[in-house]
């Protein structure tokens, strides 16, 4: 889902940089002003996400998928911490590995550090409230799955609306959304198992 250079027009690219930076700065304020704001724990989560994203699961046909884990990060360190951890991860991936274009870093962070994190977490909390804590794994599955599906949908919107990209929104959105909603089931399952395991073994490591 990492958008390379050359896909987005300058206005889209710049607007998403500005929006993303505002949300990241606000998230930093909120995370570190809270009781549980901890730079060490944030670093470990960011590093773990980076390592987990290196595991591309090859899929016959010439493609692959890997965890994004934005919603999972939020379930562990809260939405503001999750946003920061994902942003740190995306900056390192972009600057160090050239993974995701530098002109698209704002957009990539908007999709994976904001949409996936905040929407995934909101769904998790809503389902948790509706079904109760006994159904925590279902809530985590839905948060992880829908979070990634929506992040991919927004990614499809961005590249489809950009005049530099050759396909319109009517194509990019269904392709990105359906593909990531299908593969996102794996993301949902991994999210559910990690949250389910921690709820049993170390519930203090879950947020809220």
């Amino acid at each position, binding site marked *: 889902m990492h958008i390379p250079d050359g896909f987005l027009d300058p206005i889209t690219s710049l607007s998403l940089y500005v929006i993303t930076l505002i949300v990241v700065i606000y998230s930093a304020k909120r995370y570190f002003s809270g009781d549980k704001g901890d*730079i060490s724990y944030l670093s470990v989560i960011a590093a773990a996400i980076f390592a987990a994203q290196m595991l591309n699961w090859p899929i016959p046909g*010439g493609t692959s998928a890997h965890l994004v884990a934005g919603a999972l990060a939020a379930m562990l360190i809260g939405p503001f911490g999750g946003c920061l951890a994902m942003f740190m991860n995306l900056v390192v991936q972009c600057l160090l590995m050239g993974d995701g274009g530098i002109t698209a870093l704002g957009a990539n962070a908007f999709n994976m550090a904001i949409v996936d994190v905040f929407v995934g977490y909101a769904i998790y909390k809503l389902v948790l409230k509706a079904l109760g804590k006994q159904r925590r794994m279902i809530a985590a599955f839905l948060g992880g799955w829908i979070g990634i599906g929506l992040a991919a949908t927004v990614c499809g919107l961005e590249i489809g609306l950009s005049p*530099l990209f050759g396909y319109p929104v009517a194509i990019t959105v269904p392709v990105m959304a359906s593909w990531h909603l299908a593969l996102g089931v794996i993301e949902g399952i991994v999210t559910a198992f990690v949250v389910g395991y921690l709820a049993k073994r170390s519930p203090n490591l879950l947020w809220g």
Partner: protein
Amino acid sequence: MSRKALILILVLVLVSPLFGVIGSEIVGYHEPLDVAAELIGLSESEPVWQGVLPDYTVPGLPDVIGYVIAGFVGVGILLLPAILRGKELGERS
């Protein structure tokens, strides 16, 4: 938690070439958005920034070793705030 988390990260990086390099070669993996770019003729636009370790490789080293080294460099940078702070990694205040 801290030791377990660090061991998990270590294991993930060490096994990552099985997925990210060897498995990718078996299925002929290409980044989907790069394939899309090629289809519509965007492939000629070079990346503005290629990265210090482009595509998780270390120039001159085999891909598997480069992938692991790139992984450790990335993980090391992300753990830097915790290391500099001198606190036990992963410890929650």
